[in-house]
């Protein structure tokens, strides 16, 4: 039976893992390859690197990070942020990544999803959707709009419709982030997840709002997510990957457990 995945996400700037809020007050938290290897050992089913390097000149550094990570952490690796063309995607895959996640670039140029899926297969193309709840009258069906540039820009796109379209265009997986919940530790927006997962056949990765193991259970059980992504609760050692998986297993969800060798 297919296991539900638990995925730590690492923000990377200029080749280092950073922590901070809204791209300010960034603090150096270590070497991405080293942290990825540690998470893999602790049972991470996949690793996501989000490249938040501000300057374009810093991009080459990311390829080196991917190369070093793929040489020592033998779990799937997804790279998001900053990849805008098929050539850039090719370079990231050649460096050792398995998937590339497109967000702003896909909204700006939806054909990019199709071109990349044709070239590299849809399994390598992830469409990241940042969604924000639209105000609605009480009792009305909820709706979400797609935002880009880290939530700073609105689009004309309705999130569920965009998700369906992204899959038609070639995305093999959707990474759905609730911008209302992101960074708030108030739990995932399971209504958003359910609205999307019930309309597409590809796997949906839940993101934004994780506070504790119960939230991971809810994202899967109530939201229909195939995988759950989180950043700060793992980095700050508030909860271990093993603890999250134990809660999921307790709730009857299939998870891959690992015996930690030594450490």
């Amino acid at each position: 039976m297919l296991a539900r995945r638990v995925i730590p996400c690492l923000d990377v700037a200029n080749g280092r893992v950073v922590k901070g809020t809204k791209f300010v007050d960034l603090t150096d938290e270590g070497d991405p390859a080293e942290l990825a290897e540690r998470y893999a050992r602790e049972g991470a089913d996949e690793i996501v690197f989000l490249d938040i390097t501000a300057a374009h000149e810093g991009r080459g550094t990311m390829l080196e990070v991917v190369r070093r990570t793929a040489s020592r952490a033998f779990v799937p690796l997804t790279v998001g942020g900053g990849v805008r063309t098929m050539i850039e995607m090719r370079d990231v895959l050649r460096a050792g990544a398995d998937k590339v996640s497109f967000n702003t670039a896909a909204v700006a140029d939806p054909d990019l999803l199709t071109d990349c899926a044709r070239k590299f297969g849809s399994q390598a193309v992830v469409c990241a959707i940042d969604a924000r709840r639209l105000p609605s009258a009480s009792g009305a069906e909820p709706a979400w709009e797609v935002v880009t540039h880290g939530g700073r820009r609105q689009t004309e796109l309705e999130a569920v419709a965009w998700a369906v379209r992204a899959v038609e265009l070639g995305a093999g997986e959707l990474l759905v982030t609730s911008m209302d919940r992101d960074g708030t530790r108030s739990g995932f927006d399971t209504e958003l997840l359910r609205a999307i997962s019930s309309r597409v056949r590809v796997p949906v990765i839940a993101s934004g709002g994780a506070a504790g193991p119960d939230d991971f259970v809810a994202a899967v059980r109530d939201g229909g997510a195939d995988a759950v992504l989180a950043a700060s609760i793992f980095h700050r050692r508030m909860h271990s990957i093993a603890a999250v998986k134990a809660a999921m297993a307790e709730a009857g969800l299939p998870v891959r457990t690992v015996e930690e060798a030594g450490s």
Partner: protein
Amino acid sequence: MSGGSRLRVAVLDYGAANMVSISQALVSAGADAIVAARPSDLAGVDALVVPGVGAAAPAMVHLREQGLLEPLRDWVRAGRPCLGICLGFQLLFDASDEGDSGDSPTLGLLAGRTVLLEDAPTLPHIGWNSVEAVRPHPLFEGIADGSYFYFVHSFVPTPADESVVVARTTHGRPFVSAVASGSLYGLQFHPEKSAAAGHRLLVNFLGLVGGAA
């Protein structure tokens, strides 16, 4: 650099795979891994690995253009060790439904065709799934039955000869996730992305190669 006794494994580079991960995973399992893009690269190697993700038809075109198609067929027909992974596994069979034409001839080294994984609750089948032994095989020595391995694919081969099947996995319906026929091995999952279980499987593969040499 070579320890002398390390096996040399050639990973076929035909433009359809993450070469870093499989090469490094083989090195980590104890082999000297070389990337082979030309027939001459195969000189002096002990085993071949055919990796790959993506579609069958362009993969066959690349293999042919690089002159690797016949050397690969000859290698397997001579009974020399070869491991196909994911698309590289599917290519070992006669033909694939994948692609615009719906019928792409593949290597024809194993009887059967590659078909869409119908009835799957999600597609592509992405993630860790359990691999259930059909019969004991040295490839899975030391790996608990039902262990999780990483999959990422939409198509699956359907071997005509049941005796080659080593393991199955279920996603909607059961499908063949590992085969062995003499020194030819095929895996639908990615050992190079499957953490400790994948590492052990590659160590076992190298053990089989060393034993056959």
